[in-house]
């Protein structure tokens, strides 16, 4: 029963992921993109949950869905994209098919590589993926990346501010 539920949930989420992806890939209007993005990220979060990654699920929901998607949405609204400003894409299908052919080896390789690495999920304890265990790990193995990541975020923030700031007063064209 649970298995069926899990399977169907997985199918649903997988469908969500792909739908979101395809919406981004194929749609033309920014609103659809945002929607697709939202669906995709949320579905990924759901998949995290299915994988017993509870902390990751929350993080995804909070940061990605709650943060990134929202900010993206705000951005779309802020710049108030006009339909006319959207690029014309006359040969989209052709490009799509061409690109699909080109990336086929990569996808194939990726899939082939990944599928050799495990047959079935082993059972895990309930605490797997929880905040406590992850926190312990983070303070044991992840201090350095964490520190660097903090600097990274700071940098990105500073950078985003610098880039996003309105025109400065010094307007020397060069």
């Amino acid at each position, binding site marked *: 029963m649970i298995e069926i539920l899990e399977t169907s949930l997985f199918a649903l989420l997988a469908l969500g992921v792909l739908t979101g992806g395809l919406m981004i890939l194929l749609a033309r209007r920014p609103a659809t993109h945002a929607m697709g993005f939202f669906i995709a990220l949320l579905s990924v979060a759901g998949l995290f949950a299915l994988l017993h990654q509870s902390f990751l699920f929350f993080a995804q929901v909070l940061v990605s869905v709650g943060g990134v998607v929202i900010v993206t949405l705000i951005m779309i609204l802020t710049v108030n994209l006009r339909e006319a400003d959207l690029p014309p894409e006359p040969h989209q299908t052709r490009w799509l098919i061409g690109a699909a052919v080109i990336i086929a080896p990569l996808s194939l390789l990726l899939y*082939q*590589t990944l599928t050799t690495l495990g047959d079935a999920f082993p059972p895990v304890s309930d605490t797997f993926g929880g905040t406590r265990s992850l926190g312990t790990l983070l303070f044991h193995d992840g201090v*350095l990346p964490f520190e660097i990541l903090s600097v990274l975020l700071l*940098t990105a923030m*500073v950078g985003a501010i610098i880039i996003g*700031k309105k025109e400065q007063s010094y307007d*020397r*064209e060069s």
Partner: protein
Amino acid sequence: MMSTLAPFLPTTLVIIGAFVLLLISTVRSIHLKSYLYITVVFLLLAFAVALPQFGTRSGVYVLPKVFGHTYLADDFATLFDLMFLGGGALTLLINAIYLRKRDYYNGEFFALFLFAIFGMMTLAHANDLVPAFISLELTSIAIYVLTGYHKNYRGSNEAMLKYLVLGSFAGAMFILGTAIFYGVAGTTVISELAAFIQIHGSEHLLALSTAGLFIMITILFKIGAVPFHSWLLDVYLGSPFPVTMFMASVLKVALFAIALRLYLILYVDTGLIGNQIISFLAILTLIGGSWLAISQSMLKRMLAGSSIVHGGYMLIALSSIGLGAHLAAPAIMFYLLSYFISSVGAFGILSYIAADSNRPLTYEDFKGMAHRRPYLSAMMAISMLSLSGFPSTIGFLGKFYIFMSAIESGQFALAGLGIFIAFVSVYYYFKLIAMMYFYPCEEETCEQHPFEIHVSTLLIGLMALITIWGGIGTSLIPWFPGADGIISIAKQAIGSLP
């Protein structure tokens, strides 16, 4: 306590400097010069702290209780630290005039600069793919912003956009590779991975190779190896001079730091990455880069194209590692240094001259330069000679080591191609020399610019001197350190790796 923390000191100094700059950048009244010198002081301080550490360690995990095995202090990393710090300071000082003429560079610029260097340093020290990735991202993000720093300049925007899109795109490959490594071995610590591969390597050859190559793809992208080079010309052109120079010289060093570490520890003995694929890429890079460089009229683009070629040379040596070339890795380090010195000279002069004009410089702009600015022309000529690998410059020795490595590893065709490409490069480098020296000055532009005694110009001159000194060596002046010593140092650094 002090001794255990010492390896952190340079890194810490840099990050402190970055914060200091961020803080004071809010103060409007501080002059740009102060930012510049504060940055340089921090860099030099860090340099001074790092310098005595060289030659003291090999494979020491710093504060293992806190950081686990992720942060490694060894001579290898220290040497690269020194190159980043010195290179960063040089880049800034040489561009001092350029920066001075443009008031939109402020504290944040220098803070980002320091962030980038911080990222590079942690990259060099990282013994774990995850911090390595994050450091790389940190450096990249800082440089994305630096690239687009001059927002009112459309080219700058465009450059940043391209770099950002393609850079993140390429960055995904790194983390994908890391993920696969993790999937195979359950760890991302490089030394543990190496140990794992020693034992189980053959079972998961495809996965491991895929992971290794995906990581390499990101590195190759940043180096600008063909076919991952396409961003390079536009980004170099669109970036402000100090940033271009930084990317061409220091960033490349950083990437080879991680590439070498991965290669020497992870790939070489385990045969994860076929040398032939790197060789093949080296061939593509050499040919493609020379094609790009030869067909440019703008100097910055030419230098960008040529920097692709120089990346190709280093790939030659990279592909020779493990094939019996006893100096392949030191050759790369020597080449990095030689390329750094010569390209810093070249970019520095470009930026010095471009400081006044607002146009992208072309070959034509250098017509008759030797009359207007004899000293600068001489320095430029020396840089060009060195870049083309003309003997009696440090560039020749760099190429010499590279070719020797290729020959030692039995890749004769590759060495031959490298030599041929060096021949082709003579054309586009000497074209500039010809422009400078062959034309009499036209009347209206004939006035001689006096040689401005400034830290920028003096450093460019110093670079020129080092270029010559490095090429000629020391046999005429006994007891004076020779360029040969650099190889010994590099060898020692390589030796400090497990």
